[in-house]
Structure formats: C-alpha cells, structure tokens
C-alpha cells in the first residue's frame, strides 16, 4: 500500500450533520461531524459562552485514556478559534471517527497502536477545522497543524515532517504544533528528550509548513526546503478545498 504524500479532503460528506469533512493524509483517514450550536446539557451549560464538546472514536475498540487525552487537547485549542461568545448556553458538538491508520507491515497490530498518539493529532485537528468550516460555525481564524520528529543520524539531529511509524520509533522526540491563520501558535505538544534549540528548529520548520503566505496558484505546493523537512503547504490546501466547496455551493449565482 503506497501512502500518498498529498493530503486530500472532501466536505459535507454526511447528509444529516450540520457540517462534516473527510480528510486523508499520510495513511490516516478521519471523518468528522459538527453539530451546533444546539442546546447544551444543564451540566455543560456556560452562561456566556458555547461549550465545545469533542469526541474521538478509534477505528477498533472503544477508546480509553489515549482518546480522552486527544479530546482534551483538541477541545482546548478549538475553543480558542471558535467564536464561542456568540452562542451562550449552547453546545458545539464535534465527533471525530478514525477510519484508518497507516499500516505497518513489520509489526503486529497490537504493539503498533500505542505509538500512534502523536502522529494522529494533526490529522484530527485538520479534519475538525474542515468540518467546522463546512458547518459555517463562526470562527475567529482558521488553523493548520503538523507533526515533526527529531531523529539523530550520524550524531546530527535531523527533522522529519510527517514521520512514518518506524521513524517515530527511532526518533528522539516528536512534536505537534498548530498555528492559526494569523500565524499565532495555537497548540504545542511534545514528547521525548529534546533541547530548547531543537524545539526552536522544530518551531521554525512547522511554522514554514503551516504558515506559508498564500500564493495565487491553485493546487497543492510542496514547501521547498532541505530534504525531509518538506511538507505540503497546509494553508494553500485549506484554501483550495474551501474554494471548491464554495464554488459548488454558489453555482446558482
């Protein structure tokens, strides 16, 4: 099975949800649905803001601590970009269904699941943002995310964008960063041993991928950089996906 390097997305795929999106990249395929603003349960009601509820469902199994961690990370970052003050006492419900994860033919499945926590985070984040855009939930800005691993090779540190499972196993540290469309850092999670200098390099690399100033060309561009720090231009991808959707929606004009 070849893993395509370019991300793909389709919007409004679920007919009964307010908004939905299906996103695939680097072997991950995730479908997200957004419903809201709807009435919140008494226990979740907030007098001045909407409550953002994120549910992550794995492909196999019921989901445990790992999924709760992903949910809480996503909830705190998405609450920052949704205009929650517009809908007091309401609920914005986001459900993320993981459909497939990159296979690893060299390890048996059970051992493999545990290491996937970090690399799935940007895919989940991106799918959620796309679904929110499809549902026309008012937002402050859009956001893009990416994952970078620091690997030591011949006594030098190399950065790998969108590392595969084998690369993650061998990596010294793995980092997930998300930026808003105003170039602000929204989410930063790291795991492993690393120095401040390494984190700064990771920050610069991720920023280049997520915050490329947009050009007028259509399609997906690869961010030119030294080997292995390449990645797709996420903002351009977001914009071209939305352009297609808006053009289809407004065909009647």
């Amino acid at each position, binding site marked *: 099975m070849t893993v395509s390097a370019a991300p793909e997305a389709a919007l409004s795929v*679920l007919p009964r949800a307010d908004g939905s999106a299906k996103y695939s990249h680097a072997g991950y395929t995730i479908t997200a649905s957004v*419903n809201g603003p709807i009435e919140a349960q008494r226990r979740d009601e907030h007098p001045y803001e909407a409550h953002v509820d994120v549910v992550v*469902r794995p*492909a*196999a199994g019921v989901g445990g601590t790992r999924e709760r961690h992903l949910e809480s990370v996503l909830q705190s970052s998405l609450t920052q970009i949704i205009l929650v003050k517009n809908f007091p006492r309401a609920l914005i419900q986001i459900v993320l*269904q993981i459909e497939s994860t990159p296979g690893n033919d060299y390890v048996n499945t*059970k051992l493999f699941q545990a290491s996937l926590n970090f690399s799935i985070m940007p895919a989940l984040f991106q799918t959620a943002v796309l679904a929110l855009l499809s549902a026309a939930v008012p937002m402050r800005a859009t956001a893009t995310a990416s994952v970078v691993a620091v690997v030591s090779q011949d006594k030098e540190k190399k950065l790998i964008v969108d590392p595969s499972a084998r690369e993650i196993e061998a990596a010294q540290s793995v980092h997930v960063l998300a930026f808003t469309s105003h170039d602000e850092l929204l989410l930063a999670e790291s795991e492993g041993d690393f120095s401040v200098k390494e984190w700064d390099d990771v920050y610069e690399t991720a920023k280049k991928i997520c915050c490329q100033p947009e050009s007028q060309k259509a399609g997906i561009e690869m961010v030119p950089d030294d080997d292995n720090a390449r990645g797709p231009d996420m903002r351009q991808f977001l914009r071209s996906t939305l352009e297609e959707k808006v053009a289809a929606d407004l065909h009647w004009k």
Partner: protein
Amino acid sequence: MPREAEPSLNERQFVLQALQENLRLDSREADRYRPLEVTFGDEYGVAKVSLGKTRVLAKASAEVTVPYADRPLDGVFQIATELSPMASPSFEVNRPTETEVLLSRLLEKTVRRSGALDTESLCLVAGQKCWSVRVDVHVLSHDGNVIDASCFAVVAALRHFRKPDTSIEGGILTVYTPAEREPVPLGWLHSPFCVTWSYFGEEGEMALLDATRAEEQVRVGSCTISLNRHGEICQIAKLGGTPVEAVILLQCTAIALTKVKEFSAYLDKKLAEDIKRRDAGGRSAELTAENDR
C-alpha cells in the same frame, strides 16, 4: 438525555395518508431497498456501507488472547456497536439508548449465535491461546434502517478481513507479520443478513421495507428477520408494537429471502472485485520470478 426531534402532526398524517394510496415519500415501491453500496478500505477488514443516506462503517480486527475457561477450544468473537453523536445529536457516548441495545442484540443473534464465524478455527493452543476477533460498528449517519445496513457491514467486514498467519513448532507459537507471510481469511460458514419490515395502519396491514427515518418515526411496529441465502432463518424479532396478521408475516419472510439472495450475490461480486483490484499490479506481480526487460 437530549431531545429527539418529534415529527409534526402534518408529517405524521401525510405519511399515513400517502401509504393509504400506496405512495412513499421517495416514490419507492413498498418492497424496494434504497441504493445499497459497499466499499472496502485499503486495510483488510474495513467495510463501508451506504443505504440511501444511512452510512455505517465496520472494522474487523484480531489479537491473540487467552480463551474463556469454560470453552478452551473456541476463540473469542465480539461485536461492538456504540452509537456516537455523529449519527444523531440525540445519542450520547456511554449512555446506551434503546436503539443501541436493540441493534447490539440483533447483530449478536444474527451473526454470533448463528455460527457464521467458525470460532473453533480461531483456537491456536487449546486452553492457552486463541484469536479474539472483534468487529466495531460505527454509524456515521442515521437515516433509517440502521439494522440492515449494520448487519451487511459486519458480514462484509468479516469476509474481507485477513488474520495474521501462525504456525506451531514444538509448542512454540509464531505469529507472522504481514510482511513475513500473507494473512489468511477467517473460517466463514454462512452469510446471514437482516431484513427489517415496518408496519403502518391500525392493524399493521401496510408493510414497508427499508424505512427512512421519517417513516420509522411514524410506524406502529417492526419485525427484523435474519436469514442466509439458503433460506435458513437465524432469528425473527418482532418486539412489541401493533399485532400483525400471521399471513402478512409469512409473506414478509418470503420476500425477505429474495432480498437476501440479492444481497448475497452483490456482496460476493464486490468481494471478488476487491480481490482482483488488490492483485492487479500488487503482490502477485512482485512475486513472479520473471525479469522485465
């Protein structure tokens, strides 16, 4: 518990009125299914079914575990159905609703209890190690008839799934990774499918197949019949609702058999297409010893 949206009086009366005139909202016949499509994922064991606007995803997976103490020669087989708010905001995580419990029981009786999957073939070392096969059913969109769509997805996923190959030498069990040896299919005995009928009218005299959500909310009774293409019935469930004449029930069962034969043929065709797609230019091509000049 969140508020399920009730249909309005106008809608209720209209659906019944239309049925009196033998009309359905989408102009289907009473015994016709919406377009059914199944697609398989790149990974083995992932099946996605769409029945009109209802979408269900089933994923089969397996791991090695210890068998139950009272059944040392059998493997473990579970079907998990947890409805999430994706299907409808009225479903909450960790709070099973009646729909969920019914779905779970029907799939249990149809696929597990009928012996569709040969659990003895899952045994690796008697009393110590066996395969535990698990199918997770995710309802992505609920527009009626989740039961039939889920059962189809479960059967499709299990037939598509390949478990890792194993060998035992001198009491040591080796489980091969997919790179070492091609995974093998499960021991499958027969393919059961569910057919759900919905009843309308004061005496349940009007019967419809594959009700949409709007029709489901207005029905007075329903009956789910599970059988395979040989006409062997796995279960019949009519859980309450308006009493229906026995003659109508027999007619429903007969029509259910024709539908199941169609499902069976369709699934066989789709599985064959998938195998062909994987082979073309895939491993089989790599494994040939020819040189290409």
